[in-house]
């Protein structure tokens, strides 16, 4: 019943069943037969055909993809396990063909040499890439420590193997360089050059990978020790032995990171200058609103004052100018004390108190003494002060100096 497969048949067969192949490839642990048959695109007949052509295997109702197909896909997509055998195979082929070509310069052997060189180039790069991908993946995703460590260790050995193969390839190429030089073939030259470059680059890459593996292994070992230790400490703690069997107290006493200290929250006072600012006003307003203190909120802050608003005030204080007062006094015939005491100041200046008038009197008598005549006589009068006490006051009688006026 089974006729030999041609390439066309095989590709067709795979294409027709591409969905199932993809599913089976994704589920490497194999699927139940019923699961496959439940698919719309699958029937008993089709399944039988696939089994007959050994695309898939059936065993105890478990269906899995044939290993050859799996390997093919993995290799082509550069996924899956790292193997050094491909590189190794190519090196062997290269060696053989070199030998043959030396004996018989048949172009067929040269073609094989070129192909092997190209293949060494591509397989080496591919395996190195896979190695890196797998290491990273193992470190990040493998949950079990023991397995993780062992896997990384395995990759470490693989990495050594690849390095050895690279060295071997380099050795072969450099030994054959003289021989290559005798062959006049531009393509061969460029292939060899390219391969040399790729080998060096991959060697550098592998050195980096080596450092990374060691780093990962150390980290895992350190960390798994830490976790074990935590659990051990917890055990001791539960038995109340932490204090006696460990130096827990000393170690903790020795840690002075702030996190174990009392958290002193820094408190600062509000700046008064800030409260006077517009922003400060807004803030106080907000707080007041929250505390319902805004019963008087119809009192808005005063608007900005017009420039020069206080000019009038300045004039007023100027109107108390003593010069004018003295000039007026000089026109009169009374004595200075009575004049100052009874003088009606303009309304703007307001009502001056007795004390102010007295100090004005004293001030004038000192500042304008050249315009005044101090007679030496003393006048007396009674004054009622604010507390309604009667006071007798004596004062020097000062008259205008008529001579000074002239």
């Amino acid at each position, binding site marked *: 019943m089974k006729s030999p497969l041609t390439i066309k048949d095989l590709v067709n067969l795979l294409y027709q069943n591409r969905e199932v192949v993809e599913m089976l490839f994704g589920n490497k642990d194999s699927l139940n037969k019923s699961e496959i048959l439940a698919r719309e695109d699958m029937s008993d007949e089709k399944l039988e055909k696939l089994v007959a052509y050994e695309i898939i295997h059936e065993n105890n109702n478990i269906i899995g993809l044939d290993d050859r197909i799996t390997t093919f896909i993995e290799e082509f997509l550069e996924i899956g396990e790292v193997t050094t055998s491909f590189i190794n195979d190519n090196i062997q082929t290269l060696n053989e063909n070199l030998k043959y070509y030396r004996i018989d310069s048949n172009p067929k052997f040269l073609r094989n040499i070129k192909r092997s060189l190209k293949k060494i180039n591509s397989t080496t790069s591919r395996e190195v890439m896979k190695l890196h991908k797998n290491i990273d993946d193992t470190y990040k995703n493998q949950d079990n420590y023991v397995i993780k460590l062992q896997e990384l260790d395995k990759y470490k050995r693989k990495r050594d193997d690849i390095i050895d193969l690279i060295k071997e390839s380099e050795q072969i190429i450099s030994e054959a360089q003289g021989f290559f030089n005798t062959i006049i073939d531009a393509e061969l030259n460029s292939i060899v050059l390219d391969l040399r470059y790729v080998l060096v680059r991959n060697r550098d890459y592998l050195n980096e990978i080596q450092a990374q593996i060691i780093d990962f292994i150390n980290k895992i070992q350190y960390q798994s020790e*830490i976790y074990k230790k*935590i659990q051990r400490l917890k055990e001791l703690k539960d038995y109340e032995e932490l204090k006696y*069997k460990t130096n*827990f107290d000393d*170690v903790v006493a020795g840690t002075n990171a*702030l996190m174990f*200290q009392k*958290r002193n929250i*820094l408190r600062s006072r509000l700046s008064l200058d800030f409260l006077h600012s517009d922003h400060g006003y807004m803030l106080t307003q907000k707080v007041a609103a929250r505390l319902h203190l805004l019963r008087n909120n119809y009192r808005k802050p005063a608007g900005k004052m017009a420039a020069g608003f206080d000019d009038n005030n300045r004039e007023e204080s100027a109107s108390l100018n003593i010069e004018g007062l003295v000039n007026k006094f000089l026109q009169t015939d009374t004595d200075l004390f009575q004049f100052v005491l009874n003088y009606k100041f303009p309304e703007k200046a307001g009502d001056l108190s007795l004390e102010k008038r007295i100090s004005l009197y004293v001030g004038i008598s000192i500042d304008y003494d050249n315009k005044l005549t101090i007679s030496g006589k003393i006048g007396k009068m009674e004054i009622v002060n604010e507390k309604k006490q009667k006071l007798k006051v004596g004062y020097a009688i000062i008259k205008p100096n008529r001579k000074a006026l002239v």
Partner: protein
Amino acid sequence: MNIPKQTPEIFSILSKGNFISSNGSKGKLYEVISYEDNFHILKEFFSHTGYILEHGHNYYYFSQLEETNTLMEKKLEQFAYYIDVMDFFSSMDTKPTVGTRYRVTQIAEECFSNERLKQKILALSRKEKMVDKVAEIAGDLTTGGFFEQEDEDTYKVMDAIHYLEQVISLITIEDDGEQTNP
């Protein structure tokens, strides 16, 4: 000496006993401190405040030398609690390594299916619901600066977890044949 303009922000975080980790939301500040000579400049600057700027593997923190007895007790108590919490997290399938993301609901589920974890978390939190228990201890580690909350359900392990690991590795256990120290 040019003090970085982020210094007040750095100070306010560190002075509260928090860490600045490279893989947290304050990663920018971590970079500022690590930039050129900034670490030494800031160390000198902060030394006048009585705090010592320290750095661990990818994180910064403040230390202070003053010690009192009550503080000592508090420290011991707090660290004993961290042992419990770390014990819980290291007993899980996913270990608390830097960058690990934990989802509260996921942990809670694991607790339901794993009796050992369940016992541990029962001892750790008095909250009623499992999710709340998990959220509580994750929150405690977040307050300590060892975790950071990314969204309602997700916590991320910070670089500062190295600090706890460091302290734990400093503890020596008397040899009783069960365990050797790393």
